[in-house]
């Protein structure tokens, strides 16, 4: 976990030298708030990537879960409706992820193609449900998560912290977490050792979907609306964060905490670039270069014969 941590510290020092207000409590609080949703997405994707697979359906699942959240809130935007909406978002995400996982394992289709297909299936469903429009949810109790602050940080940040702690434990300490790493490290050996490969693979995609669903509900709370474009650009930043955090795309190495560092690095760089007056559209280009550097530096040592 050292390289991303060092990069984060260096970036923080460099940016605060340029603009001391970066380290102000208000700005750090802003960094934490901005990171909450990307952290959920990156943690979900981490499980998939540790396994050596990839999930490109992030934005589609967000769109569909956000549509469902907004629709539940339209019926009841009180406390009960908000809890139901949160649950419905997570269940939608799990269900979408489970479909990807089952298609991937039962039909033996590479994950990146299945999830590419599911991206558009779920985005299409979301567009269908919303009729191409936007549902405003400005008054819903769900927004408490964003608006209510505890110890200076929004409730959503605390919620995400708790979930990340749980996910980190599950990934590093539970039997399931070890299975995932083992499959990513060497699936052949994992299979010969009698690990339930298919079940674990399908479950990982479902769990990742659950994380995206929760992230979608938080996005709806944050923006005060549900629409199909709500997840735009999330796939790129999610994969950037996971990769920058040091989780290897070939599987078997990395972890949830790596991805948290990766998200912080992406957010700090983004925030720093804004403070330094870099135009927003160049940020994506900078992240693109960073992805290449991170992946190149981590795969250069793995001399596989064939890579596609």
């Amino acid at each position, binding site marked *: 976990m050292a390289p991303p941590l060092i990069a984060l510290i260096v970036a923080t020092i460099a940016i605060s030298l340029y603009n001391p207000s970066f380290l102000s409590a208000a700005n750090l609080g802003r960094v934490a708030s901005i990171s909450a949703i990307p952290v959920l997405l990156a943690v979900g994707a981490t499980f998939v990537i540790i*396994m*050596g*697979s*990839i999930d490109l359906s992030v934005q589609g699942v967000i769109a569909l879960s956000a549509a469902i959240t907004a629709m539940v809130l339209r019926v009841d935007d009180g406390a009960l409706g908000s809890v139901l909406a949160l649950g419905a978002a997570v269940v939608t995400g799990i269900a979408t992820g489970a479909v990807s996982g089952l*298609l*991937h*394992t039962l*039909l*033996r*289709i*590479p*994950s*990146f*193609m*299945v999830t*590419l*297909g*599911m*991206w*558009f*299936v*779920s*985005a*299409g*469903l979301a*567009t*269908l449900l919303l*009729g*191409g429009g936007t549902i405003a949810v400005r008054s819903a109790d769900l927004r408490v998560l964003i608006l209510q602050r505890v110890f200076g940080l929004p409730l959503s940040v605390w919620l995400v912290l708790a979930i990340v702690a749980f996910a980190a434990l599950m990934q590093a300490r539970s039997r399931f977490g070890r299975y995932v790493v083992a499959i990513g490290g060497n*699936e*052949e050996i994992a299979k010969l050792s009698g690990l339930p490969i298919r079940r674990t693979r399908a479950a990982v995609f479902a769990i990742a979907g659950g994380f995206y669903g929760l992230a979608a509900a938080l996005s709806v709370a944050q923006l005060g609306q549900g629409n199909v474009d709500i997840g735009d650009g999330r796939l*790129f930043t999610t*994969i950037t964060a996971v*990769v920058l955090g040091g989780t290897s*795309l070939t*599987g078997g190495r990395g972890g949830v905490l790596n991805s948290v560092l990766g998200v912080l690095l992406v957010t700090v760089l983004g925030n720093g670039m804004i403070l330094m007056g870099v*135009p927003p*559209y*160049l*940020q*994506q*280009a*900078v*992240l*693109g*270069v960073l*992805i*290449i550097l991170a*992946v*190149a530096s981590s*795969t*250069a040592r793995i001399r*596989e*014969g*064939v*890579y*596609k």
Partner: protein
Amino acid sequence: MTATFPSRGQVLSAAPTVFLILLTAIIVLASPGFFSGSTILVILADSVVLFTLAAGLSFVILLGSIDLSVPAVASLGGVIVAMLIPSIGLAAYPAAILAGAGAGLFSGLVHVLLRVPSFIATLATGGIVSGMALWLSSSRTVTIAGEYRHVLDPVIGDSFGIPRIILIGAVVCLIGVYIQRYTKFGRAIRAIGAGESAVRASGIHVGRQKLIAFTIAGAFAACGGALLAARMTSGNPAGAEQLLLPAIAAVLVGGTAITGGTGGVGRTVVGTLIVIVMRIGMTFMGVDVFAQQILFGSVLICAIALTLDRDLLQIVK
């Protein structure tokens, strides 16, 4: 007498064409007005941009790799054409194609030299390229002013009663089919897709062939973007975003396997027509525009499930 049952391979290679004919038949039965001369011309004209992107992508998919930067490169091509037409006129088209080839070469270099898997290399290149497109255009759609519309005429005009863009599409198709079927490079990439280690062992410079494939994909993508900009009379820095899935679908539905090694540009013609006929047919039959994306995703998954050669994959990741 030998058995007359067609093999699995023969069934699969005929399947896209049969599917296209069935699809057309269903639509004609449902709405008889569909199959008129003018509709066919509209279908062909609408296919050209998508086909150009998909034809370039075919080379990369034949390798068994993928190019996710296609929409970004196409958008960049459109922006470049729209920006350069006032100053250099017709030369804007080759300039855009050159820029696209450069972007493709960059993806290829990252993939080959840095050994980064193609989907992540092209995802990153896509990010860089769309950043460039937004930067060049200051995040705005660049409109091609009325006095320069004559420069667009080679693309949007008619010759002999046929929209010229269809003729351009035919030329693109011929170039693509020629490169893929009759050049050393074209044979090499099919071989690489079928079994890279064997090709390497037989002394072919695998990395160089891959570089060429990504460069061609980039050039074709920018060409498609330039045609799109000419049709729209403007270059939108995010204008081709929606074309990634249809382009991949066109290649795969046509019968080029995602694992590489089988298929080609000719197949992509059929695949593109399937995608376009589905889209226009559904609109004709009154299927909700929003439902079409769901159908695309599903068709894509089905096509892959059917064409995938699972012997090539010991472990499915």
